[in-house]
């Protein structure tokens, strides 16, 4: 009789643990992640950039020359979570050393900035990228003034993208 009661108690206990654990998983694990700013994965490790312009090197550092006709930067989220944050672009002026007015388009939003001569310009572009998908950021130059160099490179230079990050 006593053994049967103990056994029954254990059975009820096991069942209660399963039910409680389901509530705990919902409360502590699932629910916090419904906030789009909360991610399990490290955002910096899963966001990659694929630009329409070639990658170049100077000593050990990488950079990209943005050109006067439009430049497209595709940011891809390889994780399975929706990620919200800011793409930070660090720009330097063109090789002709004059300031440029640029326009950044992203998801029907257009903003203008000035890349000043002799300074690093940091621009933050707010983005929201679903899991395993991409978003496009286009950068164009407002002024028509050309910037051509005499070393045989026939590109019409805009600005130099020296660094990007996701925060």
């Amino acid at each position: 009789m006593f053994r049967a009661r103990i056994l029954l108690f254990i059975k009820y206990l096991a069942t209660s643990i399963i039910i409680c654990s389901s509530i705990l998983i919902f409360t502590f694990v699932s629910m916090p992640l419904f906030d789009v700013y909360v991610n399990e994965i490290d955002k910096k490790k899963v966001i990659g950039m694929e630009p329409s312009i070639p990658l170049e090197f100077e000593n050990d550092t990488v950079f990209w020359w943005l050109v006067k006709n439009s430049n497209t930067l595709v940011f891809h989220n390889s994780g399975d979570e929706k990620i919200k944050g800011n793409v930070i672009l660090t720009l330097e002026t063109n090789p002709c050393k004059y300031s440029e007015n640029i326009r950044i388009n992203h998801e029907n939003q257009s903003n203008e900035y000035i890349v000043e001569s002799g300074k690093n310009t940091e621009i933050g572009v707010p983005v929201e990228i679903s899991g395993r998908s991409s978003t496009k950021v286009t950068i164009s130059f407002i002024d028509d003034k050309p910037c051509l160099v005499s070393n045989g490179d026939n590109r019409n230079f805009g600005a130099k993208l020296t660094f990007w990050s996701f925060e």
Partner: protein
Amino acid sequence: MKSSLFTGKLVVVLISTIYLVFRIVNATLVAPFYDEFDSPQYFILKFFPSFRTHGITLVYSIIKDEFLITIFQAFVGSLVWIYLWISILRLISNRYLRIVITFLYFVLASSSVIIEHDSSLLSESLAISSTIFLFATSIEFFLGEKKYSQRSLYIFGLGILWFLSTKSSNSLIFPLLGSILLITAYQKQKYKKLVLPSLIFIIFGLFFLANSLSSDITKTLTTSGTINNRLVFVESWKNELLDSGYPEKAFSVWNDFSQKNLGLPPDQAVVSMPEFKTWWKNGGESYLLKFTLSNPDYALIAPIALPIFSDDLNFRKTLLSGWSQGTDLTSEYKGFNKSLVTRTMFWPDEPEKAYLVLSIALLITGISLLSLLIMNYPKEFNLIIVSFILILIWSYLNWWFGSKPADMARHNLSAAVMLKVISMFAVSIAIDKFLGKRRLN
């Protein structure tokens, strides 16, 4: 009566055929996925010690052709899922419930998380199939029309042996599965008839267990992966590790090889270090075991609630993630572009929803168990709760020693599938019993 029985059988044959054809067609549309690190070993059949388990190497080395292997995996997978479906249907008497369960069951059985592994040259497809087969045979043995019969006993024993032979972590629960089978068999059958089959069963079971414990290759990688993915984030765990003589330099080697592609995976880079090899010889080999035994918080709480110990750790490294997320070969590999299958509602793509589905599955299982307990159906209750506990034990063993944290989803796939199957089985049995009782009243 005869005509409705015939119609019922016809429907079963029709649904089974459609599922079988669908799965095989899907396998023909997808290019086989060959993992350069893991797959080659599955084609090497060695008697003992074998790096990969015999249930897989035997099949792969006989068939050899990658495409035919995927077809074979799809064929076997289809048959076992159909077998389990029929085993469950036999226990449900309510017609409408049968229709609902059949629909939900095949949505789960057709989800990409399960079917995509047919086209993967790894152990997952046959491991899932063997687990499903084992569950089906246990239903037949404990609850079926011919329960405890010699035939159902032999099939159950065969199910256990197949399960043990498909993954190293499966064979670790041989003592538990073997005991359940042998104790029940000796209670229900004549002693004389069982001696020889028991002996054969024990020899095979011990062979699979010994084979899994014999390989050092996975042990070193798992230890290295576990240390750098879990232990280093908690100061006290890290200090204990350094006190054991673990080379501090290994941390920077891990970081360097993680951040850039230097030609080796980070866990392999660490185990190749002479300092790691010295530590391994001087007690490192059993470090994880000793650490797990001396830290009950790590052993019991960490597998499901790792973030409690450090803000730098998250649930993705826990079993909760392994049980809920599933794999996603279909969206990760180009060869799977033509696949017809999707993740379905059982495996949402986003982690928060995946955890939610897991919590719903557990809630359904818990409430169903409670109902069976209140309605007094001990056999059904016992089968479900024992299966559930075995899944927990299997997963814990896997988390402690058998799984690199980076492979949490793939290595816990059998458990993830089973938690969903069990919840579906539990709720269908509970509702059917409830409806049966109401009809009687």
